[in-house]
């Protein structure tokens, strides 16, 4: 790969960032409890369970009940972290989240692994690509999609101090660790990773690394890219978005999600109301996924660095 502005020495799954962050947060805050629907290993909740057995609750394969239990547990001051796959954390339990958690303003942390195409071989039944949209539509809900192990760990710890429902989305595959291990995670605060002048890429989750690689390719072609990591999709850092686009005048959004309802739409909403700018979407185009290796799927569905490069070249021409 070309000369990227960020480098890494290790790859790790973001779900491990969640597991390690949960353990550390729970050591600091004794109100934190964990619930899991028969996926302790997949969610990396084993260390928490071992360290705090009386604060861990196995719900069995019953996610609707898990969301209700979590909502009830907040009454009396507990801070429940629920753990299951992103599909079963959202679509399967939308009404439970809507009524018992969001509308009821309960302090539940919905922690969702295996989001998106990079779940890989299990295929479309489990590859949810609509979860960000569903969750950001709910009033009172905060939606966070961190980009690597370090950021996921920091986010997992930060949400304990935020009072209110949170959807925390992360993934299955190992990906580069390229953010600061000691970072302070500020909910709702976008991070400018790379400054530039020709185009702004707003990326979230696994797509932030793809955008880092795309920037290196584009730099060699003489294109100056501003890369902004939108780890919090709701509340969206509108100020950072408008400030950057005032300078670059065009936008590419990149996410491992449907183009309907995700980060791209959230950014478009802000721009259309304030300072309209040409925008290209890197997202899945109204399709279900399929079985395959994560990297193969990212290429096939157009979510890799190469597609980001093409989208940037296209959007700059539209300025």
């Amino acid at each position, binding site marked *: 790969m070309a000369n990227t502005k960020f480098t890494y020495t290790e790859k790790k799954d973001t779900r491990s960032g969640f597991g390690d962050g949960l353990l550390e947060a729970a050591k600091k805050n004794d109100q934190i*409890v964990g619930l899991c629907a028969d996926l302790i290993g997949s969610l990396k909740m084993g260390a928490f369970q071992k360290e705090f057995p*009386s*604060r861990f*609750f196995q*719900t*069995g394969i*019953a996610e*609707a*009940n898990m*969301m*209700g*239990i*979590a*909502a*009830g*547990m*907040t*009454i*009396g*001051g*507990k801070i*429940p972290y629920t753990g299951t796959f992103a599909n079963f954390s959202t679509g399967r339990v939308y*009404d*439970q989240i*809507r*009524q*018992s958690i969001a*509308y*009821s*303003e*309960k302090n539940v942390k919905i922690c969702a692994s295996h989001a998106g195409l990079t779940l890989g071989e299990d295929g479309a039944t489990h590859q949810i690509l609509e979860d960000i949209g569903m969750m950001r539509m709910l009033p009172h809900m905060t939606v966070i999609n961190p980009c690597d192990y370090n950021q996921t760990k920091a986010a997992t710890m930060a949400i304990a101090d935020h009072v209110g429902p949170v959807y925390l989305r992360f993934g299955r595959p190992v990906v580069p660790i390229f953010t600061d291990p000691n970072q302070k995670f500020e909910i709702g605060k976008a991070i400018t990773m790379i400054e530039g002048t020709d185009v702004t890429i707003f990326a979230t989750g696994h797509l932030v690394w793809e955008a880092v690689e795309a920037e290196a390719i584009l730099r060699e072609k003489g294109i100056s890219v501003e890369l902004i990591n939108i780890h919090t999709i709701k509340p969206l850092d509108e100020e950072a978005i408008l400030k950057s686009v005032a300078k670059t005048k065009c936008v590419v959004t990149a996410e491992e999600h449907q183009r309907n309802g995700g980060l791209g739409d959230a950014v478009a909403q802000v721009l259309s109301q304030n300072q309209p700018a040409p925008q290209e979407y890197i997202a899945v185009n109204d399709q279900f996924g399929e079985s395959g290796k994560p990297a193969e799927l990212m290429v096939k569905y157009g979510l890799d660095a190469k597609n980001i490069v093409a989208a940037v070249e296209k959007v700059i021409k539209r300025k």
Partner: protein
Amino acid sequence: MASQANIQELEKIASQVRRDILRMVHEVQSGHPGGSLGCTDYFVALYFHILKHKPQFNMNGEGEDLFFLSNGHISPVWYSTLARSGYFEPKELSTFRKIDSRLQGHPTPEEALPGIRIASGSLGQGLSVSIGAAQTKKLNGDNSMVYTLMGDGELQEGQIWEAAMYAPHHKIDNLIATVDFNGQQIDGSTEQVMSLRDLRAKWQAFGWEVIESNGNDMSEIVKALEHAKSLTGKGKPVINIMKTEMGAGVDFMMGSHKWHGVAPNDEQLTEALSQLEETLGDY
């Protein structure tokens, strides 16, 4: 134990609550009088005799018994009971289902109405919430109890049975759930719509301590809830299958599902109120 004088006192309160329900629903020509009237004796027994609670409402409810209503559509009986037991002024009942009211069609904490800790209306969720609240009480070393009410038609929701399986597994023995067993739902009798079969056997098979009661006799419902309480703390959740009559207290509303979600007209209201003594003063 409740004395005969206590029971008569509770019956007087129940008569006023029934008047409140009818007047609330009549005023906005919407709401659910049938199930509300059927559960009035339970609510009055609970709030005026069984619950150890503080009308100075606190969301976390530490050191007090909690109640959760799962079948939120019978909000009129809950709102009236809360008002009559001091959570808010009874005159606020006149705002039921109107714009800018804290008394939403279905209960919600979003409007900060004292006494409401979770939203309900979409059925099947309250038992899970109650179990979670009961677990937090245990974690906090709080010995008070959690009560919840759900409808019998509501037992057709799958989440109920997820919760039914969870509570005995986790030995939730500070919880008394009640089923409003009136045998009616919107499209007809539960027998016709989706038979519940043997409810006692079902709950027993899931590991619950099961009692049965008559929910429209104040003396019996008080006894049943006291009995239920004596069964707590023994490693099992308790469920009270409470037989009620939809529309109880108003002769022409009883024995049918017709009054599930239908408001009385002016004439019907006058006729219904003539059957119920005004004991605490109408709001």
